[in-house]
């Protein structure tokens, strides 16, 4: 579904992605793990068009998308729940969700999807008319994911959904991610919390300083000595 081939991304002169290649197949949960500064978020931002690769290609269903602006990539069915949630803090929960469907014009479909999202996250229904900024961390994460789902994406990019959350909440969120996937949404999941990410993913890529260093089925990556040592505390 999505293929990155030798993608190089720079921040001015800083070479952030040094030839990243990966692929995501329809229906999969693929996780991208690695330590701070490895280039995970940069990879997501490059896919969603917020950063432009200097070399390499990104294909969605075989068609190149690397030279499209971010708003058009969204319309093609890639949606992102950004790192740090970045919800619209001053808009209500409902307005946040509606904003997620900005690219769409089918009112009936939007209403249907809103109901679906609220079913997925019952907590959001209770907070529907509250400002986004007054939500707790977990609720904000749910809202960010809900907002991303409102564009009815084919591919959902999740950036660090576990960040700053209590272990119990992390488990809840990941259960929901699995539910979303079972409903037919392909997911590319970036995580620092390698253990949880690997436990729900089908396949995994490990990044280090801007390059993929290990790839394979999640179960294999989970047991690889390299990963155990680096990310899972031996």
């Amino acid at each position, binding site marked *: 579904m999505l293929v990155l081939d030798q993608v190089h991304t720079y921040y001015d002169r800083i070479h952030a992605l040094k030839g990243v290649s990966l692929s995501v197949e329809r229906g999969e949960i693929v996780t991208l793990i690695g330590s701070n500064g490895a280039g995970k978020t940069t990879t997501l931002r490059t896919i969603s068009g917020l950063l432009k690769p200097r070399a390499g290609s990104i294909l969605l269903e075989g068609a190149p998308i690397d030279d499209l602006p971010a*708003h058009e990539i*969204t319309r093609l069915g890639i949606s992102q729940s950004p790192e740090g949630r970045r919800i*619209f803090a001053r808009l209500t929960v409902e307005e946040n969700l509606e*904003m997620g469907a900005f690219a769409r014009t089918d009112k009936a479909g939007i209403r249907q999807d809103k109901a679906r999202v609220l079913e997925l996250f019952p907590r959001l229904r209770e907070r529907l008319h509250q400002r986004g900024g007054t*939500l*707790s961390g977990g609720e904000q994460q749910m809202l960010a994911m809900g*907002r991303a789902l409102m564009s009815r994406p084919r591919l959902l990019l999740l950036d660090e959904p576990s960040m700053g959350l209590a272990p119990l909440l992390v488990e809840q969120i990941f259960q929901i991610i699995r539910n979303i996937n079972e409903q037919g949404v392909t997911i590319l999941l970036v995580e620092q919390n390698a253990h949880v990410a690997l436990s729900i993913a089908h396949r995994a890529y490990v990044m280090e300083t801007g390059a993929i260093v290990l790839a394979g089925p999640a179960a294999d990556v989970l047991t690889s000595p390299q990963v155990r040592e680096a990310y899972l505390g031996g």
Partner: protein
Amino acid sequence: MRLRSVQRGLRIGAIAFAILTYLILIGLPTRLGSVATPVLALLTALIFWVALRGGKSKRALADQSPAPLALTGATAGLASGLLTAALIAGFARLLAAGVNVQPYLDKIVPLNMAALYGVMPGAVMAGELPGGGWLWQVGLLTLAGVVGALLVLLERSLRQRTWSTGGALRWLTIVLPFVLLAFVIWLGSPGVTLGGNNRGTLRLLAAMAAIGSALFALRAAQRGREQRILALLLLIGLAYLPFTLDQFQNSVMGIVFIFVMMGLGLNIVVGFAGLLDLGYVAFFAIGAYVYAFLSAPFASPAFSALLTSLGVPADAPLVSFWVAIPITMLAAGLGGVLLGIPVLRLRGDYLAIVTLGFGEIIRLFMLNMSDLTNGPRGLLNVAPPYLFGYNLGNPRDIFILALLGAGVIAFAAYRLDGSRLGRAWIAMREDEDVAQATGVNLVQTKLLAFAIGALFAGLAGQLYAARQTNIFPDNFTLFVSVDTLSLVIVGGMGSIPGVVLGALALKGLPEVLRGIDEYRIVTFAALLVIMMIVRPEGILPSTRRRRELHEEGGPASEPAITLEPALPTDYRTLDGGKL
């Protein structure tokens, strides 16, 4: 409970008495002369208001209930009244007995304020405050106490928006603009002497209050039929204003509404799209100059030479005022796009600085391109608007045109606010990256904000040029931008009625205050500072903005873990993203 109300009233009364004593000792009543009584009573009512509301917090305000509050207010007023009356009577008795307390007073009053104000405290002692005997003084201050309590209640219902349930108060709000309108008309009828020499100012003030209160009335009305009927009635009433006001009053109103047009345009850029534009005057100037070129080509040496060489006569207006409208608006809109392109990637402070520069560049261009613009000597004989041969250049017709222009722009802004583009602006204002990721085309959305804002400024500029008939680069300084921005902020960012109110307060009030010229700027600055403290969201904010500045809605179950939000959006991604 009752005892506590009385105790609190006594305490507040004592505080008010202390303040009044000070004011009497520094000789304020004597200085104020004939208006001493109403001014001091009003001042005392304001003191009571502040004291009675009990702190700035919302809860303190909500805890007040009408009956105990009125009791406290009345007690405070009565106490301060009795004390003040006793003080004045005491002074009078001493004076009658031939005791000169002047030297002692001079020692009590700090910094010898009495001497500074050039006041004889003796005159005060004879009972000039508030005049008319002790019963009158006590009664007036008691009334001030009750008024203070009423102000607290009014504020509470305003803040809690209990208008719909607030019965009497709501109807009062709805009726007020009509009362004020009737007052304006009555003041203008022959034989009325109220206000003396200041009758014109009083009328202007009442007219402005009528427009302002109409906005509040509309908000107080229930949505739907009630609001529509009220709007229609208000429109009919306000449409009568230009025909009853005199030349000077109409000319002030004209300027106020030209600034309403400007404010509505800037409100789109700053309020809706969140782009801080400090060079907004540029589009106003472009509108004015383009209309000047079109209507008085002979005034510009280079332009008239060009026309003559093309065989077009340059000694008469090229097009009429009406045909010029789309041209000037388009020119200004083009200016907006031209400014927009280079600043597409800028946010926050950087954007403000660049736009500030743009405004100045346009002014300096007009100043220095002497061949084209006549430089500082300006373009003269710009044509006023004509309709079927009638000259519409007089203050009354300009006011009407400004009203119409503001109405059209307000309608456009209202429609934009609820549109898809409006939502894109909100998303962009909140977080550019996320907006883009939800499908907002940033380039298009930003340029449209600048362009649409500029269109409206261009229209305002054209009307301004037609009103002045002579325009100079000095009409288009940075201060026009600053004034416009201030009125948007004071009125309530993002709020359309707020802009009207802001223009009345910032462009209208200074004209009214001209009478007390020396204190004009001081009073004005004080008003602004107070407003920013007690009502940072503006006088008549949009619902969303009010939510932003005053936390409302149910409390979150746990404190929000917000990772970056303390900073305004603009600063959040200055680096263009994180590594």
